[in-house]
């Protein structure tokens, strides 16, 4: 039911952790209604130099978090903001029916982190 890429990403997630002196932090979700995704970024010259995630959630929540951090790392923040569901789905070889909308959560956390950075650096 899950693609090989999902299982691989889930078993060996990239960029797990929290950046202590982060330039931007985004967190979505709550324990009441489910997944919590926390993304922190380190930015230099508008480029995401480092990015880490912590996620409480299902296989999809964890693997999309990992995929999003991989896709965003090294990108200019404006490029990173343009990342779409399709990019995440492609990176993971698709998601099962009923869970295919969930790639958006990790992207939302990333966007919040970038907005947080932009807010602080206005």
């Amino acid at each position: 039911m899950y693609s090989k890429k999902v299982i691989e990403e889930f078993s060996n997630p990239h960029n797990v952790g929290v950046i202590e002196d982060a330039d931007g932090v985004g967190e979505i979700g709550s324990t009441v209604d489910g997944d919590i995704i926390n993304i922190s970024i380190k930015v230099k010259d508008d480029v995401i130099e480092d990015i880490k995630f912590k996620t409480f959630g299902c296989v999809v929540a964890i693997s999309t978090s990992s995929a999003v951090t991989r896709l965003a790392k090294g990108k200019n923040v404006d490029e990173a903001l343009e990342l779409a569901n399709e990019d995440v789905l492609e990176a993971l070889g698709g998601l099962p029916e009923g869970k295919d909308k969930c790639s958006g959560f990790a992207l939302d956390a990333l966007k919040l982190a970038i907005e947080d950075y932009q807010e602080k650096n206005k």
Partner: protein
Amino acid sequence: MDHSATTPVDPLVVDAMLPYFSEMFGNSSSLHSFGMEAAEALARAREQVAEAIGASPEEIIFTSGGTESDNLAIRGVIPHDAGKKHIITSVIEHPAVLNTCAFLESMGHDITYVPVDADGIIDLQELKGSIRDDTVLISVMHANNEVGTIQPIEEIAKIAKENDIYFHTDAVQTVGKVPVNVDDLGVDMLSISSHKIHGPKGAGALYVRKGTVIEPIVFGGNHERGLRSGTENIPGIVGLGKAMSLASELLGTDAKHMQEMRDSLISRVFDALPDVRLNGHPTQRLPNNVNLSFKYVEGESMLMMLDMKGIAVSTGSACSSKSMNASHVLTSLKLEDDYIHGSLRISLGKENTMEDVDYVVESLKEIVLKLREMSPLSNS
């Protein structure tokens, strides 16, 4: 380690079934000798099932499985031309019971869903209080398939009897694990599923006490005394009969073995990890059921990691688009939010060993620590 979901068929059961696919393939309704062999096999299986639960052969109706048995028991007691009737059940029943009740509700009948306490035991006072003049049936499961809690069936039977109400129990999870005797339990109907007790899928039975009047839900050539039409699944039924015999023969040894593994597993997980909770009743539980909740981690992720280590378990905490949904059973137990999303059911089988338990404990420890490290909720 997911034996509550299904079990492998015992080789002795397969051996018993095989001849009925080929040499003795007859149809029990045929008049000729090939048909007789089938009819005899059917009669023998009926005796085996009856004997295992202390019933008479005429009280056993063969069905296609536990789900159909539950449907037949519940819809069977409501004649289709009767007026509005009332049924009492519990909030933690299997979907085969709950969805059948929901169907009857949509047909205009009334259903009362009695709540359970934090350990999953039904509230007997509420049950008593909900009885009405038009109550025709109480249906409460013997043991719950998720959290393993065993209900006080004898007491419910007494209440039903005093009020002249039929009493059905879904014993799909208890047969072969705790003693199931229809007279000791005092039930009028009892559901059995073959594939939960090392028998084949596609076979089940409903015990219907003599004098209990029910109507069929499948119509046709009037097999099974008119209560379940359709050419009988002879090999499947032969397999169920054999599986029931084996289960009752080995009940003592098997249950003791499973219970030892269960208790060891639980205490060792508690020793190895903090922030763990046992769901279901501490002692009134199936000898093979372990249901644990782990703070800070989510059920499906644990399940997947265990699966990659070759350990099959199940979870009542499923994450589906936009929301994490806990099963109706966990929700009924009113688990705290912290614990409800990280539940795992480990259901042992007689063929498991203490080495399997070691491996599960080690793997669980590693996996939970790894997931907690990823979790924003935990401060590890």
